[in-house]
C-alpha cells in the first residue's frame, strides 16, 4: 500500500514542479468517426491524437489549415470546440508471447474477459518493411496440413500466399486448418525436445466479420488446442471503420515481434476485401479523392505496405519469419476486380477456391489450374517433392480431359487411364474441415498413389481407403512415420519400408 502512496506522491511532485507543454487544436467538425481539427501545427502523420475523455485518434490528413483524424473507439461525447492534443507518439500496440491465447481489439486491448495482458514491449502499428539486405530467400516449409496445398501449392516460411474465392467456398477453413496444423506440429516438436525445432506462432486477424463467425473460429481453435499458440485480433463488422482499417497493421506488429526475436509466425488476414472497404469508407469521409470503384488512390499501397512486412530475415537479423495468408473474397469468381488483382500482384501466389468444385463436394475446393505458389517449391520437403512431383500435372491434364468424360466409351485407353487416375487423385485430396493431416502421413498416402496402389480401388472408396491407410500407419507403423518426418526424404530404406507397409495394409483392406 505504501508504494502506491509513494507513487501518487511522486506523481504529484513531478506535476507540481514543471509546466507541461503540449501542441493543441480545437475540433471544428466531428462525425462518422472522423474529426477535423483546427490547430495541431506539430501533428505528425499517423500520430496519436488525444481527445477529451481519453479517446484516441490518428492523424491521417495533414492539411494546410486543418488536421483530419480518425477516432478510435467511442466518439459520441466529442463536440465542436473540444480540445485535441498531440501526443508525440505513433500508435503502438503491445507485443509479445503474453498475447498468445488471447483475443484483442485493434488497439491490442483484451476482448476476451480474461483480464489484463501484461506485455513488456510495444511495437509501432506502422513500420517500414525489412529491406533487401535484411532478407533471405524462402527455404523452410510451412505445412498447412491440407494435402492438395502441401503437395501442389507448397508454402514457405516468410511467403505471402493469397487465399481467394467466392463467399462460402472454405477460405477461412483453409486458414484455420493451417493454424491448427501449426499447433499440432508445435506440440510434437516441443515435446520431442529437439533444440533445432522452430515453432510457428499464429495470429488470426478478423476484419469486418460477424461476431458469431469470430466466436465459431475461436471455439474451433480452442477445441483443437490451437488457441494457446494463437493471437486473435478482432475488429468485427460492428467496430468502427478506423478499427477495421487498423486491425491488420496491429496483427502485423504482433507478428513482427516474433520475427524480430528470431521466431517464426503465421498471420492470417481475414479478409482484406473488407479491410479495403473500411479504408474506402474512411477515405470518403476524409474527403480524399476517389478512384476506381470509389477506392482512394492509395488502396494498392494500403495492402502492399502491409504484406511487405511479411518476410524471411537472414541470420544477421535474427533468422525469423512472418508468413502471411491474406484472404480476399471475390464476387462471382471475378479475379479481375480491383482489389483481387491488386493483392494477387502483391502476393507470392494464390490458392483459388471454386464454387463449382465446392458444390460438387470437392473440398477443399482448390482450383489447380488457377492456383500457384511462386516461391514455395524451394521450401517444399524433398519427401513431398518425390511423391507429388507429377500430381499437379496429372490433375491439370485430368481437368482438361474431364470435359470428354461423358463420352467414356469412345475414348482411347490412354485417355481413360488419365481420367481414372485423375478422378482418384481428386478423391484422395478430399479432406474434412479442421482436420489437418501431418506431412509424414501425406507422404505415405501419396507414395501409395504414385505407386498405383489405389488403381484397383473403386473411385467412390478412395477417401475411405486413404483414411484406412493413415489409420494403419498411425497405429501400426509409427516408427516409419517418425523416420519420414525426421529424414524428410524417401531414401531406399524408407521406400522399402513403405512398400512393405502398404502391401500389408492392402491385404488387410481388401
Amino acid at each position: 500500500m505504501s508504494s502506491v502512496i509513494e507513487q501518487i506522491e511522486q506523481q504529484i511532485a513531478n506535476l507540481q514542479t514543471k509546466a507541461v507543454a503540449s501542441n493543441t487544436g480545437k475540433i471544428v467538425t466531428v462525425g462518422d468517426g472522423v474529426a477535423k481539427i483546427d490547430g495541431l501545427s506539430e501533428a505528425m502523420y499517423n500520430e496519436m491524437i488525444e481527445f477529451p475523455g481519453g479517446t484516441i485518434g490518428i492523424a491521417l490528413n495533414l492539411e494546410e489549415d486543418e488536421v483530419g483524424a480518425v477516432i478510435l473507439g467511442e466518439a459520441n461525447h466529442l463536440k465542436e470546440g473540444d480540445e485535441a492534443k498531440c501526443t508525440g507518439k505513433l500508435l503502438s500496440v503491445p507485443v509479445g508471447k503474453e498475447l498468445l491465447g488471447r483475443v484483442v481489439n485493434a488497439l491490442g486491448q483484451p476482448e476476451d474477459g480474461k483480464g489484463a495482458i501484461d506485455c513488456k514491449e510495444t511495437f509501432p502499428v506502422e513500420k517500414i518493411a525489412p529491406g533487401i539486405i535484411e532478407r533471405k530467400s524462402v527455404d523452410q516449409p510451412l505445412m498447412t496440413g491440407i494435402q492438395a496445398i502441401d503437395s501442389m501449392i507448397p508454402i514457405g516460411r516468410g511467403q505471402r500466399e493469397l487465399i481467394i474465392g467466392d463467399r462460402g467456398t472454405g477460405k477461412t477453413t483453409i486458414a484455420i486448418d493451417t493454424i491448427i496444423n501449426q499447433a499440432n506440429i508445435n506440440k510434437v516438436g516441443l515435446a520431442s525436445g529437439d533444440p533445432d525445432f522452430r515453432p510457428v506462432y499464429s495470429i488470426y486477424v478478423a476484419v469486418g466479420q460477424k461476431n458469431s463467425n469470430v466466436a465459431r473460429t475461436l471455439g474451433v481453435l480452442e477445441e483443437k488446442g490451437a488457441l494457446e499458440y494463437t493471437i486473435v485480433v478482432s475488429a468485427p463488422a460492428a467496430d468502427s471503420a478506423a478499427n477495421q482499417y487498423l486491425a491488420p497493421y496491429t496483427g502485423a506488429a504482433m507478428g513482427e515481434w516474433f520475427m524480430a526475436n528470431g521466431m517464426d509466425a503465421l498471420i492470417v488476414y481475414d479478409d482484406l476485401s473488407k479491410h479495403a472497404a473500411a479504408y474506402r469508407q474512411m477515405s470518403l469521409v476524409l474527403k480524399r479523392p476517389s478512384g476506381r470503384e470509389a477506392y482512394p488512390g492509395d488502396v494498392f499501397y494500403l495492402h502492399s505496405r502491409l504484406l511487405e512486412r511479411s518476410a524471411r530475415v537472414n541470420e544477421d537479423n535474427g533468422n525469423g519469419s512472418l508468413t502471411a495468408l491474406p484472404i480476399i473474397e471475390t464476387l462471382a469468381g471475378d479475379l479481375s476486380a480491383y482489389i483481387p488483382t491488386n493483392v494477387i500482384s502483391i502476393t507470392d501466389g494464390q490458392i483459388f477456391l471454386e464454387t463449382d468444385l465446392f458444390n460438387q463436394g470437392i473440398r477443399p475446393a482448390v482450383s489447380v489450374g488457377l492456383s500457384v505458389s511462386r516461391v514455395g517449391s524451394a521450401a517444399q520437403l524433398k519427401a513431398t517433392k518425390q511423391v507429388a512431383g507429377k500430381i499437379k500435372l496429372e490433375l491439370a491434364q485430368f481437368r482438361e480431359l474431364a470435359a470428354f468424360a461423358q463420352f467414356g466409351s469412345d475414348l482411347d485407353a490412354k485417355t481413360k487411364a488419365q481420367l481414372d487416375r485423375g478422378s482418384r487423385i481428386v478423391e484422395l485430396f478430399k479432406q474434412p474441415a479442421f482436420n489437418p493431416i501431418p506431412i509424414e502421413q501425406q507422404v505415405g498416402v501419396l507414395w501409395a498413389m504414385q505407386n498405383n496402389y489405389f488403381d484397383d480401388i473403386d473411385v467412390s472408396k478412395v477417401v475411405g481407403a486413404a483414411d484406412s491407410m493413415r489409420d494403419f500407419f498411425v497405429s501400426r507403423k509409427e516408427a516409419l512415420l517418425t523416420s519420414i518426418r525426421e529424414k524428410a526424404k524417401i531414401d531406399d530404406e524408407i521406400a522399402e519400408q513403405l512398400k512393405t507397409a502398404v502391401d500389408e495394409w492392402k491385404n488387410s483392406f481388401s
Partner: protein
Amino acid sequence: MTQDKQIKDFAKQLLKMSQDGSDVSAERVDGVLKALDKNPPRHHIALLKAYLKLVQREVAKSTAVVSHAGALSSDATEAIAAELSAKYGRAISTVTREDSSLIAGLRVVVDCDVYDSSVSSALTSLQASLS
C-alpha cells in the same frame, strides 16, 4: 469546393497585404476593410470570415494568453513575455485572464502551444494515470 478555394486564396492575399513584415498592422487591416467596403467582392461575407480567421491565427502567433488563478504580478507577466519572445524569435505580447477553474497556477497559450502548470491539469493528468 473551387469557390471555397478561391475565397481562401483571396483571403490569403488580403492577409499578406495586411502584414507589415511578419506582424499584422492595424493600419493596413483598416485599409483592406475600407477597400473591401468600397468595392464589395463576390461572396463578401464568406471572404471576410476567411480573412478574420487568418488574421486571428496570425495574431495568436504573437499573443500569449496567460490564464491564472489568483494574483499575477506584472513582473511575472513581463518575464513570461520575455521568455516566450526569446523562444519563438518574435515579439510576443501577453493578455491576462483570470480563470478560477485552474485552482492554482498558470496556463499560457501561444497559437497551438499550451504551457500548463495549473493544479487542475495536474489533477486531471493524475486521474488519467490512475485509471
